[in-house]
């Protein structure tokens, strides 16, 4: 590594970016040594800058020497020149230091060592002073170079560590692939100052998952990318494989294999990353590959969980469905078989009562199938909410109408707040919500218990409440009644599949509304649902 390869501003650049990262820890702390080394506009050490200035200082000391020659004599002067050497070394580096040492020694010899105006040295003590001056100058130069180099490396290391720290912090902040790609895009651009492209395998081919705006990715690059992905080796610009490309591709490797490819666009084949940035890049790539693997695993785990959940649901569904479908079907088939085979032996009233049973069971079956279909459509997102301004009287009326016979066995009172405006909703769906809630209330209420329906505006929402004096729901089940297939465990409870209320919840939520169940203080249940007065935007 030579000095010229390594422009100092590469580091300062790195530091500027890190400065923007708000982590105070990433700000390198300056020791007094650093301050001294960096005083003023420190040029790259070993540059020719400062040479004229150091010569000027030597000249100045010489001029001063003439003025004060009478006061300070002889070898004491060497100390002044030594100060100049130390200053030049600290300020401008080794070239200036060596030069001021040599020129200082020469000036001293020429002007202030007898015989004056001559380089001849006759006095042995002056010779020692001269050798001392030169030695000190050279040693200081060497030490300065070493110290500055150490400081520079420390700064760079610190910068790299800080860059890496902030990169890994961004990587671990999110587990999703998009968050990781986001972090990669941001940090790679900042630290390496090159347009990049990230390709990850998707199904059986590599697809571009991130591309800097200024990077040109042509179709024929795919061949190089596939090669890199298969071989796990670099290719493209600056390598022996596909050197014609403007992009340098590197594989993202983990212990398990290659998880993707990153490409860096270069300006020319000479525009390569400096070696210690390549080292940093190696670590960045490693971290990226690990993060991608981690995201992949997280996604797989999530998928497995979803599958497991779906599996559990499917089992519950199958259990519920097979039980709930087959029970009424068994009744219907039983009745039909009885009448077909033994019809002649049965009197008419018996036949009628049998048929009545079959009819009721068939209706139950129809209701169940309808609920299952609705649930499936809700979950598949197939139910579309067609919001229109609706009259609440109309909706409640239609629900009561649909309940038909069942609604007449109980006293149902309706109280709608006067001057209630039209409310945006899908009336078909909200009628169904009301029918399901009312059906529930009717099923769980003893014969004469009244049922109340109330509608009013409540903080910018339509609130519809259905209150019954039925058996009530145990406190711990109030939320679970809206779960699929959940049924309150009550002895002798009416038959059902536990779908009605979960459909209600789905339909209300499709309106951006909410539904809840409460226990009433004097017994019974209150179901309330709220619909926003602003139409849902499609």
């Amino acid at each position, binding site marked *: 590594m030579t000095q010229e390869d390594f422009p100092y501003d590469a580091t300062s650049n790195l530091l500027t970016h890190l400065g923007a990262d708000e982590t105070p820890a990433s700000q390198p702390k300056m020791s007094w040594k650093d301050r001294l080394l960096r005083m003023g506009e420190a040029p790259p050490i070993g540059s020719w800058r400062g040479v004229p200035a150091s010569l000027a200082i030597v000249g100045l000391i010489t001029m001063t020497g003439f003025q004060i020659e009478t006061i300070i004599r002889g070898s004491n002067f060497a100390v002044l020149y030594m100060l100049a050497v130390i200053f030049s070394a600290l300020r401008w580096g080794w070239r200036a230091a060596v030069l001021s040492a040599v020129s200082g020694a020469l000036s001293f010899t020429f002007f202030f060592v007898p015989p004056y105006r001559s380089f001849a040295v006759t006095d042995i003590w002056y010779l020692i002073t001269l050798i001392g001056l030169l030695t000190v100058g050279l040693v200081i130069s060497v030490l300065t170079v070493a110290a500055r180099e150490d400081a520079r490396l420390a700064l760079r290391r610190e910068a790299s560590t800080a860059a890496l720290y902030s990169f890994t912090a961004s990587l671990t902040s999110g587990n999703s692939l998009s968050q990781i790609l986001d972090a990669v895009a941001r940090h790679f651009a900042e630290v390496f100052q090159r347009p990049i492209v990230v390709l990850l395998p998707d199904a059986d081919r590599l697809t571009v998952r991130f591309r800097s705006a200024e990077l040109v990715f042509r179709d024929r690059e795919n061949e190089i990318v596939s090669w890199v992905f298969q071989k796990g080796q670099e290719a493209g610009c600056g390598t022996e494989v596909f050197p014609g490309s403007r992009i340098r591709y590197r594989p993202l490797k983990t212990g398990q294999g290659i998880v993707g490819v990153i490409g860096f666009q270069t300006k020319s084949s000479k525009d390569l990353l400096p070696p210690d940035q390549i080292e940093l890049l190696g670590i960045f790539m490693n971290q990226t590959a690990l993060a991608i693997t981690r995201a992949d695993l997280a996604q797989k785990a999530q998928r497995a969980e979803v599958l497991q959940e779906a599996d559990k649901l499917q089992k519950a569904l199958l259990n519920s469905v097979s039980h709930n479908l087959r029970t009424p079907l068994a009744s219907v088939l039983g009745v039909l078989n009885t009448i077909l085979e033994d019809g002649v032996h049965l009197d008419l009233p018996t036949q009628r009562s049998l048929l009545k049973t079959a009819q009721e069971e*068939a209706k139950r079956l*129809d209701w169940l199938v*309808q609920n299952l*279909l609705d649930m499936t459509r809700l979950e598949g997102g197939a139910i579309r909410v*067609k919001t*229109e*301004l*609706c*009259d609440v*009287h*109309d*909706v*409640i*009326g*239609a629900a*009561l*109408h649909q309940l038909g016979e069942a609604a007449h066995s109980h006293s149902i009172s*309706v109280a*709608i707040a006067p001057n209630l405006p*039209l409310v945006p909703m*899908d*009336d*078909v769906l909200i*009628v169904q919500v009301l029918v399901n809630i009312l059906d529930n209330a009717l099923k769980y209420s003893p014969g004469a218990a009244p049922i109340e329906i109330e509608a009013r505006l409540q903080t910018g929402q339509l609130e519809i409440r259905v209150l019954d004096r039925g058996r009530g729901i145990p406190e711990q089940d109030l939320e679970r009644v809206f779960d699929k297939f959940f049924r309150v465990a009550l002895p002798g409870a009416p038959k059902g599949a536990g779908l009605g209320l979960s459909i209600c919840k789905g339909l209300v939520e499709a309106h951006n509304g909410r539904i809840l169940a409460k226990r009433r203080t004097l017994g019974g249940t209150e179901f309330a649902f709220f619909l926003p007065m602003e139409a849902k935007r499609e």
Partner: protein
Amino acid sequence: MSDPGSRILIVEDEAGIRRFLHASLESHGYSIHEASTGEEALQVVPAFRPDLILLDLGLPGIGGKQVTSCLREWTQTPIIILSVQGDESEKIAALDAGADDYLTKPFGAGELLARIRAALRRVGPQEGGPIFATDGLTVDLVGRSVRLGGQEVQLTPTEYSLLKAFVIHANKLLTHRQLVREVWGGAHYEDTQHLLRVNISNLRRKLEADPTRPHYIITEPGVGYRLRTESRVSSAPSNV
């Protein structure tokens, strides 16, 4: 009150449903003809000249909506759509195209017969005279007056034209679109739709004893409204 001898065409691709409809309708004195596809129905109608058509919405080939449009080119024979829950938009399209009513499967024979009777009865009020009366509600289309239980009811012009549309098509299910077209001219269906709701609501407040349990104007959620008449349309002006 069935009209024995009325001819009904059943258009349905499911043999089981056809058999059930045929049996129950024939036992009530209707004469029945069956078609299993829309194409067949279009061929049969001119020859059989049915008084009413029961039309399945989900036919293979030409669907119920297209059959309705084709028939409405030349005949006003009442059409009752048979649908299953789920094809709401098709159903509304068929009603907009001119079908009179719909029934959602599964339905009982009693409900079917009631709808058939209502649809058959509907053929005629236009010729029946200017006075419409049902269950205490009397509408004089010439004098533009409305009476409820003998009391004059004050309606705004819009409410009146809405009621008039119901009276002219008594017992027919009128879709939102059809009502908007009848009352407002239908140029801006989307804009006028909420006006329809407001006017229905106002009309009910003036005519119905309990607007949540309407007696006259019945809501079919998502589809439209119908004016229900239990008794026959009177053709003789008796109480004016």
